[in-house]
Structures are given as C-alpha cells and as structure tokens.
C-alpha cells in the first residue's frame, strides 16, 4: 500500500516536490543555456493538483498547439517525463540550435529531430539532478515527439494518473531566455515512486 495518496496530499509534500522541480528544471535550464549558448532563466516551479478538466486550461487551452517530447522513466523511479513547449518556442529553440532563422508552421524533419535531441538533453539533466539528490537510479528511454493539441498530448500522462485517482499532479516549470520561451516540464512518477522519492529525502519514514 502506497503512503502517498493523490487525493490527500500534505502541504509538506508539495513543498518538497516543488523543490525537486526547482532543482531539476534549474539543471535543465543550465544545460539548455550551454547547448544554445544563450541565457536561459526559469520561472518558479508550480506544483498543482488539477482536476482532469482543468488540464487544458493550465496550458492555455486544450486546442493550443504544442510540441511534447515524452520519455519513459525507468530504474528506482518509474513513470514518465514530458518536456512541452508551444509551437513558437519550438521553432525558436530549434533555429537557435541549428543556427537558422525561425520558421513557422509544421516542423521539418530536421527540426523535429533537433527538438527531440533538445528534449533528450534537458530531461536528462532534470532526471540526473533528481537522481543525485535522492541517491536513486533513474534512467530514461529514447524520446518520442508529437506536435498536436495540448489536450491530446496531455491525455497520455492524464490517463496514467487516471488509473490511481481523479487528479493530475503537475510539476510545472517555465523557461525564459533572451527571447521569451514557453516551455514546461511535467514529471509523472508512478504512485509508488512518490514514496521512494519522499523516503529517499527523509520526508517520510
């Protein structure tokens, strides 16, 4: 029986998960800045328990077009992690990486592959820092990328939460750079993984 219950989350857990999000995203921002040779700042992470029907709103509407890079998390912690960005930010990031001018509309194959790589690196940095502080082994699968409506992309993690409760736990961090970037992380540990993380940090016995 898992101690962590999504229907009754104590404030201290939220604080701890916020801090984890902070550290993870901080590391990811650093790796992004190095990769793009530009300044990347992040916004204060928000941890929220949202009802399913509020998910789309949190991302600016269910039909907002976003790019989602999704990886399965394996090891001591299992679940998934998603790096989400709006279409404009996706073009901006890939153009910076490839040294081209930002395009519009559908991503080219080249851009999609660059974006996957960006997702791979930033989520890797995020997970590495979580592994370091919790002293747990965390590995990740190869990434897959989808550009589609926010609601459709987020249905994937939402369904994972749906198997254990009626809410989704968002650890959401935004980035800003020289130019504004709209990007988020969404870490979706399986329920037993919360216990492991919180135990590893000494928050629960």
């Amino acid at each position, binding site marked *: 029986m898992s101690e962590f219950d999504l229907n009754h989350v104590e404030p201290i857990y939220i604080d701890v998960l916020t801090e984890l999000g902070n550290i993870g995203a901080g590391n990811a921002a650093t790796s992004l800045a190095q990769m793009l040779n530009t300044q990347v700042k992040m916004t204060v992470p928000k941890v929220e328990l949202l009802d*399913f029907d509020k*998910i789309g709103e949190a991302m600016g509407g269910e039909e907002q077009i976003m790019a989602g890079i999704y990886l399965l998390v394996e090891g001591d912690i299992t679940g998934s992690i998603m790096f989400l960005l709006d279409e404009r930010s996706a073009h901006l990031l890939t153009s910076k990486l490839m040294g081209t001018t930002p395009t519009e509309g559908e991503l080219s194959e080249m851009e999609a592959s660059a974006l996957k790589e960006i997702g791979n690196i930033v989520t890797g940095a995020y997970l590495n820092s979580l592994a370091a502080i919790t002293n747990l082994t965390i590995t990740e699968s190869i990434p897959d990328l989808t550009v589609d409506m926010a609601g459709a992309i987020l249905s994937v993690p939402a369904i994972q939460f749906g198997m254990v409760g009626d809410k989704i736990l968002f650890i959401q961090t935004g980035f800003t750079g020289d130019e504004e970037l709209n990007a988020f992380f969404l870490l979706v540990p399986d329920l037993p993984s919360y216990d492991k993380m919180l135990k590893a940090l000494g928050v629960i016995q």
Partner: protein
Amino acid sequence: MADLIKVGMADLKLCIPPAGITTLGLGSCVGVALRDTVNKVGGLAHVMLPDSTAIRNNSNIAKFADTGVAELVRIMEQAGAKRSRMVAKIAGGAKMFNFNSDSAMMQVGDRNVEGVKKKLRELGIRLLAEDTGLNFGRTVEFFPETGDFVIKAVGKPVKTI
C-alpha cells in the same frame, strides 16, 4: 452558431437540440456520441480508460468506457430517449507517442475503443461510424438534431461522419 455545450476529460453531458455539444483535444481518450433517432435527444462522453473493474479507485464513472457509456444512456433515458432507438458515433483512441513498449499503457487508445464498442454491443446500441486510432488528436462536435459528428484535427481537413 449557438454556443456548444462543453464536455471535459472524464466527463459526460446531455444535449437537447438545437444545441450542439463538443469535447476538445481527444488524444488516447474516446469521445462517444449517442442520439435517439426519433426524439433527437443526444449526449457526449469523454472516457479515459477502458474498464472500471480493472481499477480500484473507480468512483468517477464518467472516466471509464463501461460505466461512462452506461451512465450516458441512463441520463438520456431520463430525458426521454429510448435505448432501442439509440445510435452511436465515436472518435479518438489515438496513440499519441510511439515507443517500442508493449505495455498496456501504450495501447490504451486501442483498448479504450474496444472498451466502448464492447459496452455498446452489450447495450444493443448500433455503432454507425467511427474515426479512431492513428496518431493525432481530435476535437469533436456533435449535433443530435442531424446526427452530424464533426471531427477536427491539426493540419487535416474537417470531416463529418
């Protein structure tokens, strides 16, 4: 056009003409549109998971294909619809990400579609049309007056089934 009634994720609602009803950004979830062909009473459900009996925490009946379809039928009957005159159209059940994993989680779109079809068969409700599977999200609009089920996807022409 009049405002559409909005159905959220893991939600279901009744729709009486001339109103229309919509749910936005279906991914692996399935949108189930039902209508009584005689008095035009309709409804739409947005289900997330195939089977309530496989999950311990299953109090939200709109979340599951089996209980969600049954509940939609129930509220439509309360509004005067007859089950024997109901027909269905469904959309969604996409596989949004592609992994070399045969985990049940990755197949959830297909399983949702199967779960809905199974329940419809059990209830004797005929499935008239579907736009399911593949790898993209869908927004649907349903008009019980005509039975039109409009499907919108990013970068694809609007289609009515």
